[in-house]
C-alpha cells in the first residue's frame, strides 16, 4: 500500500514537472501559434548550464538561476534571430526550423560536455529522506514537488494577476485587437517566448538531481510534453497542469505494474483523447 502512495506521490512530482515544461509550450503555441520543437532542447540547455554553475559555485540556487538565464538567452536569440521570419510561413516550416534548431543546440551541448551521462547531486537541503506518516520519501523529490508547485503558482500569478499576463491572455484570443489597443504585440510575444524558454530551462535544472543529464534526454521530454499538451488542450494553462498530473500519474502508477509499459500507456491515453475529445480536456474547440 505504501508503494502505491509513494508512486502516487512520484506521479505528482513528475506530473508537476511535466506541467512546468508543458506550460511554456502550450502558452507559446496559444499566443504565437508557433509550435516549438526546440522546447526540449531548452530543457537540456538549462540542465547542463545549471550543472556548470553548480560545479563552479556549489550553490544549487545559483545553478537554478544560471540554468534559467542561459535557457532564456537561447530562447530570446532564437525568437529574434529566426522565429520572427517564420510567423507567416506554414506551420510545417515552423516545425522543421525549430526541429533543426533543437539538433544544433543538442549537438553543441554534446560537443561541450560529451555524450556520457552526468549525475548531479542534490543540494544539501535536499539530502536524505523525509517521513510523512508511515511513508518514507527522498527529501529532494519532496522539494521538487514543492519547487514545481511554487513555480507554477508564480506563473499563474504572472498570467492572471499582472498586466503582462492580461496581455498574454487577451493575445491568445485576438492578437490583432491587442495591437489595435496600443500594445506592441511583437514585444509581448518575445517576452512570452522568453518566459516559456526560462520555464523549460528551470525545469531542466530542477530535474537534474533526479534524472542524470544526457544530451538526448531533450527529445524524450519534448515528446512527453506534447502528450501533455494534447491531453490538456492547446493554449490552456490549467490544461497543462491537469494534463501534466494525469501524465505523471500514468507513468508512475503503471511503472508499479511493469516499468516497460509505462510509456506505452501514456501514448494510449493520448490516443484515447484524440479519438474521443480531439481538442483536449480543456482546450478550445476548433483550435488547430
Amino acid at each position, binding site marked *: 500500500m505504501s508503494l502505491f502512495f509513494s508512486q502516487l506521490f512520484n506521479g505528482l512530482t513528475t506530473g508537476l514537472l511535466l506541467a512546468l515544461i508543458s506550460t511554456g509550450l502550450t502558452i507559446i*503555441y496559444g499566443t504565437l501559434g508557433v*509550435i516549438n520543437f526546440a522546447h526540449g532542447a531548452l530543457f537540456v540547455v538549462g540542465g547542463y548550464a545549471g550543472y556548470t554553475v553548480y560545479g563552479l559555485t556549489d550553490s544549487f540556487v545559483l545553478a537554478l538561476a544560471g540554468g534559467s538565464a542561459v535557457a532564456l538567452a537561447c530562447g530570446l536569440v532564437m525568437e529574434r534571430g*529566426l522565429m520572427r*521570419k517564420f510567423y507567416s510561413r506554414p*506551420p*510545417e*516550416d515552423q*516545425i*522543421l*526550423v525549430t*526541429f*533543426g*534548431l533543437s*539538433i*544544433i543546440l543538442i*549537438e*553543441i551541448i*554534446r*560537443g561541450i560536455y560529451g555524450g556520457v551521462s552526468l549525475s548531479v547531486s542534490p543540494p544539501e537541503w535536499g539530502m536524505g529522506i523525509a517521513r510523512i506518516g508511515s511513508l518514507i520519501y527522498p527529501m529532494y523529490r519532496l522539494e521538487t514537488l514543492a519547487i514545481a508547485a511554487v513555480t507554477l503558482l508564480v506563473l499563474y500569478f504572472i498570467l492572471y494577476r499582472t498586466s503582462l499576463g492580461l496581455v498574454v491572455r487577451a493575445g491568445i484570443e485576438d492578437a490583432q485587437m491587442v495591437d489595435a489597443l496600443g500594445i506592441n504585440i511583437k514585444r509581448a510575444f518575445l517576452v512570452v517566448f522568453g518566459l516559456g524558454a526560462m520555464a523549460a530551462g528551470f525545469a531542466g535544472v530542477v530535474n537534474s538531481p533526479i534524472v542524470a543529464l544526457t544530451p538526448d534526454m531533450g*527529445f524524450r521530454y519534448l*515528446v512527453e510534453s*506534447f*502528450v501533455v*499538451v*494534447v491531453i490538456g488542450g*492547446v493554449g490552456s494553462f490549467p490544461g497543462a497542469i491537469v494534463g501534466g498530473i494525469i501524465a505523471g500519474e500514468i507513468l508512475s502508477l503503471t511503472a508499479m505494474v*511493469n516499468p*516497460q*509499459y509505462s*510509456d*506505452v500507456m501514456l*501514448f*494510449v491515453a*493520448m*490516443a484515447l483523447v*484524440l*479519438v474521443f475529445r*480531439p481538442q483536449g480536456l480543456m482546450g478550445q474547440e476548433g483550435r*488547430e
Partner: protein
Amino acid sequence: MSSVHTTTAASAASARSVKQAGGGGLVMRGRLPEMWVGLGLVLAPFVLPAIGMSPDLLTRILILGLFGLGFDLLFGYTGLLSFGQAAFFGTGGFVTAYLLTDGVVGNMLLALAIGTVVAAVTGLLIGYLTLRRTGIYFAMSTLAFGEMFFFMENSVFKEYTGGENGIAGVPSPEIALGFIHIKVSSGWPMYWFVALVFFVGYLIARRIVRSPFGAVLKAIQGNPKRAMALGHAIQSYKLMVFVVAAAYGGLAGGLLGLFQSYMPPDAFSLDTSAQLVIQTVMGGAGTLLGPLLGATIWLYLYDGLQQIGSLGPYWKLILGVVFVVLVTVFRRGVAGALIQFWQRTRTLPAHIDADASSKVASVLDIVPPLATTRPGAPVLEARGVSKHYGGLKANSDIDFTLREGELHGVIGPNGAGKSTFFAMLAGELPTTTGKVFFRGQEITGIGVTSVCQLGMSKSYQINQLFEHLTVRQNMMIPVLARLRGRYRSDLLRSLHSDHLDSQVNAAIALVDLSHHADTQVSEMSYGEKRRLEIGLALATGANVLLFDEPLAGLGPEERVLVVALLKSIRQGRSMVIVEHDMDAMFELAERITVLYEGRKLTEGTPDEIRRDPSVQAAYLGGMDDESA
C-alpha cells in the same frame, strides 16, 4: 453570346498549335525521369566507387531512398508532415526478420511481402487516429505514436523483437520464384537486388503521382477545404496515401534487415523518423528523388566528415546548420533549387502538361437532374430555416425557393444574415431549425462534398483556388470529382483521357482563360483569378450554382465581363447570387429575395423590389423607428 464563342474557339486553336509544335518531344519528356533513374542505377556501380562510395553505402542510400519515396508522397505531395514513419519502417523490418529467422516463412519474397502488408495495416490504424487533426497536431501525434512503437518494441513485443538486442541472424536473401533460384550475397549482388526493388518502387510512385489520385493529393496540399467543396472525400485520400507511405516504409525496413543480416531496434527510433524528414527536406520534397539525394548527402557527409578527424564528432551539428539554412532560405531543398534553375534557363514555360489532350468538348457536362423536371419546378428549397448561436438569432424562419432555370438574387443590408443563410443553403452549415431540400432530397448540413456530388456547387467571395497549380490543373480537380465520385483508389491509372481533357478544356474556354491554361494561378491577375473561381464551380458540372459576391474586388470593366459571363452560362443551370452591386443585381436577377435582420423581408421581381417602400426603409434605417 457569339463573341464569347469566337474568342474561345480562337484561343483553343492557338493552344492546340503550341502542343503540336512541341508534341512528340514533350511526351517523351514525361518519361524522362524514369529513364534517367534507371540509367543512373545501372551506371552507379561503375562510376561512384571512384569517389569513394562502397556498394554498402549505395545500398544503404537506396533503402533510405525507398523509405523516402513513400514519405515524399505523404509530405511532398499531400503536405502531411509525419514525424513517426519509423513505426512502419520498424514494423515491416521486424516482421520480415522474425518470419525468416524463426523459419515461419521460408520464402524471402513472401516474408518481405507480409512485412510490407503488416506495415500498411499498421499505417491504416495510426493514420485513422492521427488524421483526425491537421497541421501541428498531426505532426505531434505522429511523433508520439512513433515513439510508442519504439517503447513497445522493448516491452509488449519483446519476445518477437529481441528487445534491446534486435533480431540477429537474418538469413541472406534468396529469390525463390519456382523456376528461378538466386542467392543474393553481400556486396554488389545486394546492391543490384535493392536497386531493382527501388526502381520498381520508383516506377509505382511515379504512376501514383501522375494518376487522378495523385492530382487530388496535390489539390489537398494546396487548398484542402476547396478540394472538399469540389466533391472529393479528402479524408479517404489522406488515409490511403498514409497507408501507401507506411507500406513503402515497411518494405524498406524489411530490406534493411536482409542487407545487414540484422534488424536493429533503432529502426523504430525518433532518430530514424527525424532522419527521414531531414533528408527529404534537404534533398527536396515533392520530387520523389529528394529523399534519395538527401540520403546521399547525409551518408556521404557522415563518411566524409569522419575522415577529417577533428570534425568527426560534429557531423550532426554541421548537418543541423545546413538543414536550418536550407529550410530558411531554400524552401524547396537541393533538388527543388536545381529544378528551378533548370526551368529558368529553358525557354519553354515550366508547366506544360505534356500528356494533356488538346481536344475541347463542345459542351461542358452538366450533371443531369435525377428526375425529369419541368421549367419552374422547385430545385432548391429552404423551409423555415433558422440559425441560432446561443442567444444570437442569425437567421429566423426563412422560406426560399429556387426554380428550375431561374436566376435568383439575395440582397439585404449589413447584418441581414446573408452569409449564414447562404452557408445553410449550400449544405455547409446545419440549421438550428428548418430544412433545406435539393430537388426533393433533404440536404440540411450534409456537407459540401456530398452536396457537390449531388449537383450543386458554390463560388466563393474570397478566391479559393489552388495557387501553386496551373489553370488546367485547377480545372481538373472538379472534373475528376464528377467523373470519379467522391473517392476512387485509382493510384495506377493514367490521369489524362480524351474525355477528361476535353471537359477541362471546355470549362477553361467557358471562362475565357484558354490562353492561360498552363499559367500558374499565383501569377495571374485578380480578375483572371475571379473568373477561374467561377470556372471551378462550373466545372463540377453543377446544375445549381451559388455565387457569393462574384463581383467582389473587381474594377468597373471587369464587372461588365463577369456579368456577361454569368448571363452566358444560364443554359441548363439554375443560379442564386448574393451581391451588393445593385446595378449588376438588377440586370441579372429574375427574382430577388430581400433579407433584413435575419428574416425574409420580401420577395419579388426586380421592379417590385425597387418600388417596395419597406425595402427602401430597411436599407436606409427607417425600420428602427418601429417598436421592437
